[in-house]
């Protein structure tokens, strides 16, 4: 199978769905680029090149550059979704949700319920999350817990190129509003990705590694860090069951609970801020529903309760590292923690 980057996988998903269904449109800032400029069209294709090439194939009526106007973008996408299009709107950085959140959480997310089931809002909002590029406090947040908190939204966090393509196609075909969160540190990562279209259902976890000693749950860019930790631990004979639920809402509760029932130990690793975060959400789930099987305190590995710092050394310390994850696993197993 051909190896492709996460960026390419996402681009292919968009391309295949636009080819398949003319109601699919892409809208956002510089999703093509060059509108009103003196140079080339498609000059950007998204600020990190993810939508490159689409405008050439589908034209500016379906690949729509906008002013810097996130409320209008999200609102227009929501309004278009409820009247017959299937928009894929881009919120360039998830950090910008503060200037458009109403259209997402009070409008799109609630239409169906408020209107007694009559509305369908097949809207996808693609956005970029995460730290690691020294983009500082307003361009490095994760914020997926905020979307996960909102009833009416589905939240997708692909950790690799293969999942990104299948989950995005699923998102576009889905009839509910979906928040599709791409980690900016993953765009260059590669995986085997089929050329043809395929879907991955929401709410079905992937078991990245299987093991009976400790259950580790992680999403998005944290999966690779957990995998690195698991690989190290394996050398010491510690078998980690690494679960990537892939979507936070719906969440594959069964996969997590069944695993913990077997291992009796849970480490949740998440890049979001800790308070009312996703790590806490999953820890609480297990503390309520698999308590009897727990053999040790649950451990959460997250950033501290601080904004994301700019300086690279501080940012590195901010993010959960493979070392911290491994240490948490060992602590859960009652071993003396080497570092931290």
């Amino acid at each position, binding site marked *: 199978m051909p190896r492709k980057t996460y960026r390419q996988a996402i681009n292919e998903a968009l391309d295949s769905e636009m080819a398949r269904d003319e109601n699919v*449109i892409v*809208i956002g800032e510089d999703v093509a680029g060059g509108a009103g400029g003196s140079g080339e069209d498609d000059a950007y294709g998204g600020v990190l090149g993810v939508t490159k090439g689409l405008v050439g194939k589908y034209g500016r*009526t*379906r690949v*729509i550059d*906008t*002013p810097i*106007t996130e*409320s*209008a*973008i*999200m*609102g*227009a*996408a*929501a*309004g*278009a*979704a*409820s*009247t*017959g*299009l299937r*928009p894929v709107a881009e919120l360039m950085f998830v950090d910008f949700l503060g200037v458009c959140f*109403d*259209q997402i959480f*009070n*409008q799109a997310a609630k*239409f*169906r*319920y*408020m*209107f*007694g*089931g*009559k*509305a*369908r809002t097949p809207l996808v909002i693609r956005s970029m999350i995460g730290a690691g590029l020294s983009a500082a406090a307003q361009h490095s947040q994760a914020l997926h817990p905020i979307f996960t908190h909102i*009833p*009416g939204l*589905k939240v997708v966090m692909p950790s690799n190129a293969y999942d990104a393509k299948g989950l995005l196609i699923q998102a576009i075909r*889905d*009839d*509910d509003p979906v928040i599709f969160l791409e980690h900016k540190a993953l765009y260059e990562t590669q995986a085997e990705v089929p050329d043809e279209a395929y879907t991955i259902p929401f*709410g079905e976890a992937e078991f990245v590694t299987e093991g009976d000693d400790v259950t580790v749950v992680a999403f998005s860019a944290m999966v690779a860090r957990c995998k690195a930790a698991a690989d190290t631990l394996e050398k010491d004979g510690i078998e980690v069951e690494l679960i990537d639920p892939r979507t936070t809402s*719906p969440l594959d509760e069964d996969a997590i609970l069944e695993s913990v029932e077997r291992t009796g130990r849970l480490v949740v690793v998440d890049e979001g801020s800790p308070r009312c975060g996703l790590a806490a959400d999953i820890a609480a789930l297990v503390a309520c529903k698999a308590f009897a099987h727990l053999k040790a305190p649950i451990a959460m590995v997250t950033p501290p309760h601080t904004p994301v710092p700019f300086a690279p050394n501080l940012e590195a310390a901010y993010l959960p590292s493979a070392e911290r994850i491994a240490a948490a696993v060992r602590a859960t197993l009652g071993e003396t923690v080497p570092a931290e």
Partner: protein
Amino acid sequence: MQLDRPTLIEAYRRMRLIREFEDNVQAQFEQGRIPGFVHLYAGQEASAVGVCLHLSDEDYIGSTHRGHGHCIAKGCDVTGMMKEIFGREGGLCRGKGGSMHIADLDKGMLGANAIVGGNPPLVVGAALTLKTKRLPHVAVSFTGDGGSNQGTTFEAMNLAVVLNLPAIFVFENNGYGEGTGVSYAVGADSIAGRAAGFGMPATAVDGRDFFAVFEAARDAIERARTGGGPSAIEVTCMRQHGHFIGDAQAYRSREELERVRADDPLRIFRDRVTADGRLDPGDLDTVDTECAAAIAEAIHAAENAPVPAEDELTTDVYVSY
């Protein structure tokens, strides 16, 4: 402009139906039979009807917290509406939305909206659908004078101009956003003038005069249908009641409240069409009677409808989950 008799009757019928609806909602609310917050549209009927009379079910409107009038003008069923406002089964939103969220997508009514400035971006989206699908319809946003100051509204206007969409922004300037006067809250000389600054045709009309609204709306809608892009209309009108039912309205002088009663758009309409002989008072009286009966029936149906089944609590959050 000469409107034919059936159109005149229909215009009056919708305005009267709104008034009758609102009068009854007020009475029911005051008897404690309607839960929640309710904002009455009485006094502004010529705006909703003057605009919506040009629209079919394929055209879209987006509304506000003060949405009953827009719903009725757009053809929503008053019984379904009343049940909704009572929070009952069979309501347009199965009792889950209430007064501030009545919607009927089949009628092109995209919903009342409890967020001031909430609907303009959505209406731009509906207009985008129409343009993308090359349909000859339009999308109309109703917003208040207060809502005209919200960032979302400004953004929606700019995006509609940039994408040349068939969107019409109707600003119902009833003088107040809650208890704050428009002369204070709008820094510009006029809402229409500020909208014109965004690069679209904008006019201001007297919203007590159905005919003035009707004509301005016709021009804007015609322009939008034929690819001419968005327009704005500032409709100056008067809110007959408080901001919400129960508002003591201390911020309005006695003189102003008297003027409000005097400047009733229904009375103005009636006087005008009967004075020049286009309609008989009797025709209008018949409409009055029919509307009163329709609303009485709606109230009766709503009162007697069961409350939603408790399992409705968790249904229709998602299409699938």
